[in-house]
């Protein structure tokens, strides 16, 4: 109705500015939940399970609504069904997703803090059995129910440390909507390449906000779909799922294509229970070495997003949503406040890009840590891995995203007044 009226009205007036009409369909308006869902679809998802929770379920509901996806196989247009299941709880959601992964399918679940807490034991199982699975972790204001419809970054350490025992896990956090899309594809690649769980962090403030993006930003024609050591063994033949012959990543044949055993107990190369100490040492090391491999193989520009002035004596470290505000204030800080900044948005927390980060931070006069939590969790990653401690902290935990004015002001106070810990509190 309104559109119709507007169109009619526009025909009645003479154009004033000779504006060219914006070509339709070149831009998309997308929220973080949808960006993740479409990224998963592009990345070849076959199975998603979920238990409803804010702000994660919109992603799964989108997948449910679009579960028959278009394909082009051997040049022919077709479609394929994705299975989406609403489960009885998050333990079931993660269990089903891991099961689907064992059968060779790219599988995922999406949840938020309370649900993720229930998934801890299963993630440990997936790590121990070297099973790929993707958990899209929408981070809201915690602890407990916290601020369920607000945002925050206080679950970073929980995500990175989830599950009992030592096992490789890959943890990454997106900084904006375009990153969410590409990271959803990347997460599947990493899960299969390293045969281990991948936790993809997206803040509520990205999940439920919209960006208008050029379609080119969601172009995945160059993105690779890498399935790692997924093979289809000769069904007549049994194979050793955990063969120690080919380095830390051993060939994985889906259930249904050949016989194999999986157990959360320590196991031998065949997958059967083994308490043999020599085997234990070797199997443990095999698993852990995958993380070293990931650290070596994941490109630096995936691990860190670096912008601003590389010669600046001030560095800002951050992750996730403050990226946007930081990008927006760089120019004003330089031209009006005469503050030069180099910004490092950390995208990976496991493996943590310690060496790459150290190279950037080692000669900085100030390292200003910008985060949406109380304890500066990214800062403690940095101190733990780099023996460099951030000099200043700009923190906010009131559930609202950082805005440009308060962030610019805080950086001025950190640099100009040497204020060490600045707490932000804007927002309604």
């Amino acid at each position, binding site marked *: 109705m309104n559109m119709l009226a507007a169109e009619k009205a526009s025909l009645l007036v003479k154009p004033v500015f000779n504006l060219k009409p914006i070509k339709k*369909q070149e*831009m*998309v308006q*997308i929220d973080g939940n949808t960006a993740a869902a*479409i990224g998963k*679809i*592009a*990345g*070849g998802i076959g*199975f998603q399970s979920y238990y409803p929770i804010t702000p994660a379920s919109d992603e799964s509901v989108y997948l449910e609504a*679009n*579960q*028959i*996806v*278009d*394909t*082009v*196989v051997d040049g022919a*247009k077709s479609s*394929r*069904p994705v*299975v989406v*299941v609403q489960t*009885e*709880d998050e*333990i*079931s959601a*993660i*269990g*089903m997703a*891991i*099961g*689907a*992964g*064992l*059968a*060779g*399918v790219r*599988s995922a679940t999406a949840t938020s803090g309370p649900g993720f807490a229930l998934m801890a034991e*299963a993630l440990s*199982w997936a790590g121990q059995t070297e099973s790929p699975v993707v958990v899209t972790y929408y981070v809201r204001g915690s602890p407990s129910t916290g601020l369920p419809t607000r945002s925050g970054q206080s679950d970073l350490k929980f995500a990175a440390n989830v599950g009992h025992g030592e096992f490789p896990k890959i943890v990454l956090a997106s900084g904006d909507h375009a990153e969410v899309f590409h990271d959803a594809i990347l997460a599947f690649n990493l899960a299969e390449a390293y045969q281990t769980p991948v936790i993809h962090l997206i803040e509520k403030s990205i999940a439920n906000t919209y960006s*208008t993006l050029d*379609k080119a930003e*969601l172009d995945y024609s160059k*993105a*690779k*779909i*890498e399935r790692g050591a997924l093979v289809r063994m000769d*069904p007549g033949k049994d194979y050793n799922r955990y063969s120690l012959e080919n380095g830390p990543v051993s060939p994985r044949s889906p*259930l*249904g294509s050949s*016989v*194999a*055993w*999986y*157990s*959360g107990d320590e196991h031998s190369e065949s*997958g*059967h*229970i083994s308490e043999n100490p020599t085997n234990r040492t070797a199997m443990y090391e095999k698993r852990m070495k995958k993380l070293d491999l990931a650290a070596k193989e994941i490109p630096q520009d995936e691990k860190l997003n670096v912008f601003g002035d590389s010669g600046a004596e001030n560095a800002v470290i951050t992750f996730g949503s403050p990226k946007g505000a930081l990008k927006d204030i760089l120019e004003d800080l330089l031209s009006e406040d005469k503050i030069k900044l180099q910004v490092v948005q950390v995208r990976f927390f496991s493996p943590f890009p310690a060496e790459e980060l150290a190279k950037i931070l080692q000669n900085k006069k100030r390292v200003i840590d910008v985060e949406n939590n109380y304890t500066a969790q990214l800062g403690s990653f940095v101190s733990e891995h780099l023996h460099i401690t951030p000099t200043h902290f700009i923190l906010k935990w009131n559930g609202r995203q950082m805005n440009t004015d308060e962030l610019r002001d805080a950086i001025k106070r950190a640099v100009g007044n040497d204020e060490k810990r600045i707490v932000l509190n804007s927002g309604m």
Partner: protein
Amino acid sequence: MVNYRTAEYIDWCPSCGDFGIVSSETMALADLGIDRSKAVVVSGIGCSSKIPHYINVSGVHTMHGRAIPFASGIKLVNPDLKVIVNSGDGDLLGIGVGHLVSAGRRNLDITILLHNNGVYGLTKGQASPTLHRGLQTKSLPTKNINDSLDPLAIALTAGYTFVARAYAYDAMFTKEIIKKAIMHKGTSLVDILQPCPTYNNINTKEWYEKRIYKLDEDYEVKAPEEASERMSKALIKSFEWGDRIPIGIFYENNFIPEYGQRIAEHSPAYFSDYPAKQVIEQNGKSTTDISRLLEKLGV
């Protein structure tokens, strides 16, 4: 001849009822001629849950109480597989009871074999949810003051479409029941009475063999209208526990659509092109085309 037993060393106690179950199950697989690579045994944690290591088809030994979700994920993406869950009574009716009940709502085509020994065997004999109130098995410091759950009554009311009970030491009978459960299209539950000679000194072989008797063959729902009456009868039968304990098939209903069929209602290609079959990548590139989805988001 395919050997359905592995060479793994079995570490159950001597004369544990689980030996009867592994024999029945492997014989059932052999009788049905099931392709080893097309069957998966999924278990939780417990003495009973070690069984996948002893059966020569694919095995997934998961977490305490969680076999049903794992099994469901496997079956959902590859409906061509025969998926069997083996777990203990503590596993399926204690920590995992939410999954056991919820599975009834889906009626996915999986088979659940419940090793019912009245105790938590692996953790040295605490009471399981099936142990009756007032009983004090060997490891219990006092009498059990909890009432017991009845796996059959739960399965019937939760929506299971095949509900049966077997007895571990009657391997031939158990084998036949397992075969029918596997062939049933929908979720089936077999409650297998399983003596635990180490910790359950009450529900022993001798105790059971004085009491059990076999049900007749009249259990199947023959028309949809008959379902509730059949179920009521089965439910009443399931309460019979004391001097006489019935074993056999209590209920079968083939009129409830299986979960895969429900998926196929909105995804007609599901059975021919289920996720495990799909080609999602060619020459390193995604075969999925999202342009239609992006068009909808165009501004």
